């Protein structure tokens, strides 16, 4: 309804259009793992490149021109601004279109969206990051945020498991963390056919034997396929973790990212607004959560 005095003057103004993608250029494509490339993007508008800020755990909506739009979690840390790093697995038609692009090609980006990890709450505590397979993608933002603000956190433990060494995301940079003393970086693979792997071999939960975790002063950020949630969550509960200190990153279908299109709703929550980071407590209290 238009107020009478606006009738003559009103024109649709879409400048505040939350669906407006902003163009960004592919700066680098790093082929980390087969069908899991890391895309580095920079906004073409300088002011956006400088001003874009996000929280670890948030996501963007990525447009591949002509193919479509999809939610992608941000893998880079806000402590390293100017560019965005996105770890994208090739699974469907839009990601397939993305994989055909080359350095210097242009994409659309809008965001950041979602609630991210509760950094203010986590600061001053220990952090346990536990990831399986592709679950490292959203956790990597949190990892580097914590390492870049090392004095704000107590003990940092990373447990990451992949099938084989060549399936490990961010392998080189994570291997470089193994010898650091300010983080307990535990990497494991289910199998090592080549025999060149110098870290752990075995299932992810076995890494708990190598970590000293105080459940009452630690926030655990967990991400991975359902099987990872199943075993890690149980282990954390057995250790006595409060359910609201276990943080999960959930994947849902999204068409808008801003709480309108309905696809990502879980019970009465929208993953795009109330998530994608949920506590384990939320998870067990919302239907269809995992």
């Amino acid at each position, binding site marked *: 309804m238009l107020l009478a005095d606006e009738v003559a003057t009103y024109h649709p103004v879409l400048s505040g259009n939350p669906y407006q993608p902003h163009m960004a250029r592919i700066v680098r494509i790093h082929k980390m793992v087969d069908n899991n490339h890391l895309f580095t993007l920079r906004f073409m508008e300088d002011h956006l490149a400088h001003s874009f800020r996000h929280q670890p755990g948030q996501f963007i909506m990525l447009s591949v021109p*002509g*193919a479509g739009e999809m939610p992608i979690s941000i893998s880079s840390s806000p402590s390293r601004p100017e560019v965005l790093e996105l770890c994208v697995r090739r699974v469907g*038609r839009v990601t*397939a*279109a993305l994989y*055909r692009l080359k350095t210097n090609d242009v994409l659309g980006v809008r965001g950041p969206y979602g609630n991210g990890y509760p950094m203010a709450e986590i600061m001053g505590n220990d952090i346990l990051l536990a990831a399986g397979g592709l679950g490292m993608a959203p956790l990597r933002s949190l990892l580097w945020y914590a390492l870049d603000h090392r004095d704000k956190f107590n003990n940092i433990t990373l447990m990451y498991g992949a099938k084989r060494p060549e399936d490990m995301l961010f392998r080189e940079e994570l291997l470089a963390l193994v010898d650091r003393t300010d983080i307990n970086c535990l990497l494991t693979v289910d199998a090592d056919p080549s025999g060149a792997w110098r870290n752990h071999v075995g299932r992810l939960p076995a890494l708990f034997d190598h970590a000293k975790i105080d459940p009452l002063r630690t926030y655990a950020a967990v991400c991975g396929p359902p099987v990872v949630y199943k075993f890690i969550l149980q282990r954390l509960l057995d250790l006595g973790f409060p359910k609201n200190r276990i943080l999960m990153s959930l994947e849902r279908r999204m068409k808008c990212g801003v709480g309108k299109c309905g696809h990502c709703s879980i019970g009465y929550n929208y993953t795009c607004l109330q998530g994608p980071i949920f506590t384990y407590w939320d998870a067990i209290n919302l239907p269809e959560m995992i």
Partner: protein
Amino acid sequence: MSKPTVGIFGLTGCAGDQLVILNCEDRLMDIVALLDVRDFLMASSENDTACQLDIALVEGAVTTRRDAARLLAIRQRSKALVALGTCAVWGGVAALDRGQDRARLLDEVYGEGHPDYDSIPAQALHEVVPVDLNITGCPIEKEEFVAAIAALLNGDVPLAVEYAVCTECRMRENNCLLTERGELCCGPLTVAGCGARCPELRIACVGCRGPVDDANSASLVKVFEARGFAPQDIAARLRTFAPQGVTS
């Protein structure tokens, strides 16, 4: 970039889908400019019948051993094979008689003592060779075809419609032929994309595009039966275009 080489073929069918391609009047010049059509018997008398093809568009069902052999040959010379139209995708009306005694059918049609005709139960293309993409419809929709070609030229898989005719019919605000008039309308089971053309004209959907993913025919059949339709009439309607897709 060189233009993709294309062949357009018809097996057993009415050639309606090939005709739709030729009827894309306003887009035809664009299509020809973008595709290198090498083999299209319906449109050209000079064809390269042996060259390698990037895309083969194949209409019709496989109803003879000759069809099957042609399809195998097309498959062998093509990178991507697209099933064009309901007959190619689902078997179509030619497959209505599947499961019946073939010899008896031939006797019925041609009389006893007929020559030995090459005739096998009709099959959809995917039952004979691997198919890369389905574009359904009886005939196919121009817009869907052009959109599919546009997507393929970019290397994208065309978008698939994942909902039933009812959805499009409601969007167009038609009176529902099923709930309002009690007609034997297959809209709830049939994949959309046609813009609910028939219900728009007050003609019940006969399911010519084949079933939607996750079609719940058992439930709709109960409704039809409760409305007084005879089971054999319902079964005949559901079987008309996609004998393998919808079972009651």
